[in-house]
């Protein structure tokens, strides 16, 4: 922590200086401690140039940009990436008409991105945590397939859905009714049947050139899993379920992402060997069920140590998404290295979900955060945040309420706006 210095001065001056930067113009962030989350590591006194929403240069010999922002040595990181939550799909958890993440009838084709609300108050609030984009996961319905993930940025703009239908979410493991075996069995059967159908169709097509019957929409999604267009994003905790999924990956050459994976430490070597990323909650350390008897604050560090690519997520209510950086901080306190912690909320999430962000590198989306100090510390805050190269505020409804109730007025507070 000692290498992170707190600069108290000129925060406001800085904010004013760069408010003119806009999307079309280019700008350079100079004198930054740039955590690239690439092989380049950390660059001191570095310059990053952004144009048209992309990083176009790092430490160029000559800076040519419309605007320059002096970072005064502060830390610049890729924007943090949330995942596996319901951002933009739920405004108030217990208000049914503000929820769009689940539907009893949802199946593998469920595309919740159609319901995404960029004006949700959770979005500016989450920017306080340096979150610039997010992988939204639908909750689905009765089906074991919960629908498909989509990626949205946190700009709050109406065009903030970046990619829809990118991966398939499945919920496996302990069941309150029935057996976990049946879900695994059905998953295997569906993949096997689809593999056979594809082979048959191929054979048929080569024999007679008659137009093949288009597969059903559900079958198309299964086929996308088989040909690697979509990843299978699987919630599972118990080691046996994780192993079953690794086997399916091997059998069907799936692109697999494990989510939750509370007992992954028991089979960490196998997960690492299969190069399967794990999306986990760093602070889940209680044996919440018989599937998660080995949950521990040390698991993020242990899995990383074993060679598993770990992405951190804030589980539970999406309103807590902004806490992601504190979860990473706690993971550090419990054995994760600082650089791995940063990767776990940026590049590793991007890699797990095939996103074009999460790193500071030429050509990458300019989702960037300039921090007042150590990004993981409770005492730091976002100084500046850019999404696709455009600067956004971290002001939220919460700030308006606080300002109202800490103001002095002879009139009722309702007049303070």
């Amino acid at each position, binding site marked *: 922590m000692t290498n992170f210095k707190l600069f108290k001065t000129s925060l406001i001056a800085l904010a004013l200086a760069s408010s003119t930067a806009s999307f079309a113009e280019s700008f350079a962030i100079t004198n930054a401690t740039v955590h690239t989350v690439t092989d380049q590591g950390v660059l001191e006194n570095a310059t990053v140039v952004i144009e048209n929403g992309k990083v176009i240069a790092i430490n160029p010999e000559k800076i040519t940009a419309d605007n320059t922002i002096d970072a005064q040595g502060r830390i610049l990181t890729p924007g943090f990436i949330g995942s596996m939550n319901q951002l933009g799909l739920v405004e108030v958890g217990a208000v049914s008409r503000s929820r769009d993440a689940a539907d009893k009838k949802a199946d593998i084709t469920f595309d919740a991105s159609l319901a995404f609300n960029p004006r949700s108050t959770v979005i500016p609030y989450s920017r306080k945590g340096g979150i610039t984009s997010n992988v939204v996961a639908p909750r689905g319905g009765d089906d074991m397939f919960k629908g498909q993930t989509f990626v949205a940025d946190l700009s709050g703009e109406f065009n903030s859905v970046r990619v829809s239908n990118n991966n398939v979410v499945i919920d496996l493991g302990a069941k309150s009714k029935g057996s976990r075996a049946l879900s695994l069995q059905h998953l295997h059967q569906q993949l096997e049947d689809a593999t056979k159908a594809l082979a048959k169709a191929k054979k048929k097509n080569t024999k007679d050139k008659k137009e093949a019957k288009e597969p059903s929409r559900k079958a198309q999604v299964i086929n996308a899993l088989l040909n690697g267009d979509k990843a299978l994003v699987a919630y599972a905790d118990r080691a046996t379920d994780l192993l079953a999924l690794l086997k399916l990956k091997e059998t069907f050459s799936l692109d697999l992402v494990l989510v939750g994976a509370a007992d992954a430490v028991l089979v960490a070597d196998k997960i690492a060997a299969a190069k399967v990323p794990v999306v986990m909650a760093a602070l889940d350390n209680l044996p919440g069920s018989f599937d998660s008897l080995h949950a521990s604050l040390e698991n993020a560090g242990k899995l990383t140590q074993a060679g598993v690519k770990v992405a951190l997520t804030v589980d539970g209510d999406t309103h807590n998404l902004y806490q992601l950086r504190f979860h990473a901080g706690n993971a550090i306190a419990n054995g994760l290295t600082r650089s791995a912690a940063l990767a776990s909320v940026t590049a590793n999430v991007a890699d797990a979900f095939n996103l074009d962000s999460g790193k500071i590198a030429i050509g990458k989306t300019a989702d960037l955060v300039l921090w007042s100090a150590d990004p993981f510390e409770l005492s730091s805050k976002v100084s500046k945040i850019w999404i696709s190269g455009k600067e956004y505020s971290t002001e939220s409804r919460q700030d308006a309420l606080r300002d109202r109730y*800490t103001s002095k007025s002879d009139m009722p507070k309702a007049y303070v706006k």
Partner: protein
Amino acid sequence: MQKFLPSLVMAALSVALTGCLQSEQQDEKVVINKNPYPSTYQVLPQQTTLIKNATVLTGTGTRMDNADVLMVDGKISKIGKNLSADGAAEIDANGKWITPGIIDVHSHLGVYPSPSVESHSDGNEMTSPNTSEVWAEHSVWPQDPGFEAARAGGITTLQILPGSANLFGGRGVTLRNVPSPTMQGMKFPDAPYGLKMACGENPKRVYGSRKVLPSTRMGNMAGYRMAWAEATEYKRAWEKYDSDYAAGKNPTAPVRDIELDTLKGVLDGDILIHNHCYKAEEMAMMIDLGKEFNYNSGTFHHAIEAYKIADSLAENGNCAAMWPDWWGFKMEAYDMVHENVAIVDAVKNSCAIVHSDSANTIQRLNQEAGKVMYRANENGFDIAPELAITWITANAAKSLGLADKTGSLESGKNADVVIWNQNPFSVYAQAEQVFVDGAKVFDRFDEKYQAKSDFLLGQK
């Protein structure tokens, strides 16, 4: 609700009323045992301990640098510089921070334990809007691994409350965070009972869906008022019985009612109110409700909107227990501000508390308080660690009626102490050693002091 006959709980009093004119033959006096499940808590092995050269946050608003803390016979003996004590076990705490043991006023450990299985889901008696007759202590599973996890986070005292489905959820119990095979072995000796009440969405949702009162907030208020009116009559009946008996008559004792015993306990001032209540307008009504029926409206838990009525809370002697940042899961949790605790705390005679209501965040109440401190300081407050620590120690002890026993490092108080590896308001802070009544109950670097629940023992 079951009614118990007076004969079930009888305690004989000496009927030696010498000098009194006895107009009639008196039966044995019926006296209700207020402590039928008494604490059997025993202090763990302890010795005179001197912790040297630490940064000490006393819990009284003071910070002392390079200070020593001396614990003798389970009590704080002295705090100061260059202390010495013959035969004391010395701990070099140079560079480390010391705080009072952390107190959580709102926990469901043991009643909603890990693992979360139906068999142990014992926190919410959702069968009637008034279940003042249930006691959370009768649900506590002492093997909940959450107790160990909380201890590693510096928690030495915690109140276990029933859930919030009911207007009156039942009695809460305050525990010492020490391992024991029984609830009684954890029970904080002589701690007052709490009564859990709940405002707002939960009771009206649970009972409204069954088409019984309450289905609205006005139904909630009606439910409380009817219960307090009945409790007032019950109290009067017992007082009449006591005074008649004292006057030498032979009155018939009122029929014992376990539900009303609890409400009467509140009216007698023996039981403290712990009221799940998020919204400003509801807290204001609960304060008036207390005045209407002559009891103190106590501590408001999950007081998301406390900042809107901070002055009123202080004026009426209410504590408010709050989260730093939970919000949005219900409509009544929509108006969260990060500075809530700080705004409440800024008023004179206030009692601001950071609580968890979570088996997870109870392990990091220090960080929860830290979040409030830093966000508030970014927005015009000037809160130092020595003040922020009171939100999870002294103020919490006050809320539980334990301010004379724990919550601060003062001579004569219970030696409930946490040694932190650094400033406890850092994300990297960890409790290294935890003491309850001067006995070490946790040591991060010594497995001997790391208890393990029966449930986790032998699991592969």
